[in-house]
């Protein structure tokens, strides 16, 4: 903006400079940019259409000038612009510089007009902008038409409960057990019960020539596994001829003694 430009007329006299105390907060300008334009394509299109120019006929140089002016105005006011606006500014500046550069005649045929890509994009964007407003113009459910919503008056029906098969039940149980094994913590190692060790212990007890009642050799606190180990140990001892099993008669208590 040049200083000579008349901004407004105040009490009949022209005003050429912004008064020092008239301050437009940069935020307000940023809002205009963000609320009015959907992005750099939209702003560019606005700059072209403002003059009723055809995209094809437009002078890129002229629009570029205006766009860059706009951006530098924003920057001058320390407005943080969305990166997309700056990207477009860079693209425009590049196109402008390429147009200014003299090109050797031989290259001219191959090199595409740098404006072509931009023009194509602008046209596509404008088409989609028009498509958007055409879509918005279609009668829309919930805005222009509404569904009928009568009460259906259906009688209540008995609830259908899910069914399970026996196989699903068995599978669930197997899964629960498998998982239980995995998640069970094993801080207590099961007492090691070896048959040989038990054989020695039994012989030790029988060592003084005592006769011990069969059932007294078992310790209930050891559980099933203990009983099994003790029994196996006794069988081993019999087999090796180290102990004798005595029974006074059928169904009488068994007694064990060392040989």
């Amino acid at each position: 903006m040049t200083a000579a430009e008349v901004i407004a007329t105040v009490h009949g006299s022209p005003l050429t400079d912004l008064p020092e105390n008239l301050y437009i907060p940069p935020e307000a300008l940023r809002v205009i940019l963000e609320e009015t334009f959907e992005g750099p394509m939209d702003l560019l299109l606005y700059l072209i259409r403002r003059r009723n120019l055809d995209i094809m006929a437009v002078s890129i140089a002229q629009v570029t000038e205006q766009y860059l002016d706009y951006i530098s105005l924003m920057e001058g006011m320390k407005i943080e612009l969305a990166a997309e606006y700056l990207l477009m500014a860079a693209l425009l500046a590049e196109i402008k510089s390429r147009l200014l550069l003299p090109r050797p005649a031989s290259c001219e045929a191959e090199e595409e007009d740098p404006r072509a890509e931009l023009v194509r994009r602008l046209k596509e964007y404008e088409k989609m902008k028009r498509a958007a407003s055409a879509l918005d113009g279609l009668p829309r459910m919930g805005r222009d038409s509404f569904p009928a919503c009568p009460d259906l008056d259906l009688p209540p029906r008995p609830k259908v409960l899910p069914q399970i098969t026996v196989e699903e039940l068995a599978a669930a149980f197997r899964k629960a057990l498998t998982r239980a094994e995995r998640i069970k913590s094993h801080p207590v190692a099961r007492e090691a019960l070896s048959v040989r060790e038990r054989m020695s212990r039994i012989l030790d007890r029988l060592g003084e020539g005592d006769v011990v009642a069969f059932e007294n050799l078992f310790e209930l606190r050891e559980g099933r596994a203990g009983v099994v180990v003790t029994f196996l140990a006794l069988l081993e001892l019999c087999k090796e001829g180290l102990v004798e099993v005595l029974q006074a008669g059928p169904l009488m208590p068994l007694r064990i003694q060392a040989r």
Partner: protein
Amino acid sequence: MTLKQIVEALLLASPEPLELRQLVSLLEEEGPSREELETILQELASDYRGRVLELIRVAGGWRFQLRREMAPWVGRLFPEKVGRYSRALLETLAIIAYRQPVTRGDIEAIRGVAVSSHIMRTLQDREWVKIVGHKEVPGRPALYATTENFLNDFNLQSLSQLPPVSVEEDEKTEEQRETEAVRATA
């Protein structure tokens, strides 16, 4: 648009019954009197009498309703969705079936997580599970078991018909290890 058409449209589109005073406030701009609206509602109700849709007066106001006679066909639009039971429920039931009688604590010990009261209630509502006694330990927790209804629903004559669930791998291994140990010493 006539006022009658507008009232008709409002009643057709409203998902809830509309009371006279709601119609008055929706049509504030048009400003009909209560009497006018009352007449219109009576007229509409008689216009629709005997048709597929009927205008009826319910507790909440006026409402268009599909005639009850249409229910057998309309019901077909909303086939019933049969839900599925959660894995948690299935496992809880399985543990009760295979290990009964069990306390909630027993079930939790196997599953490793707390048993939700919701699941226990569902199982009891379904009459698959019932409380058969209390364990004689502190707190006297309830002991759960399956019911006769459970057997009927699962086509079982007795619990012994439950499919056998194989002993776990590692338990087997342990037994085998013991047997092998005995053999080795022999």
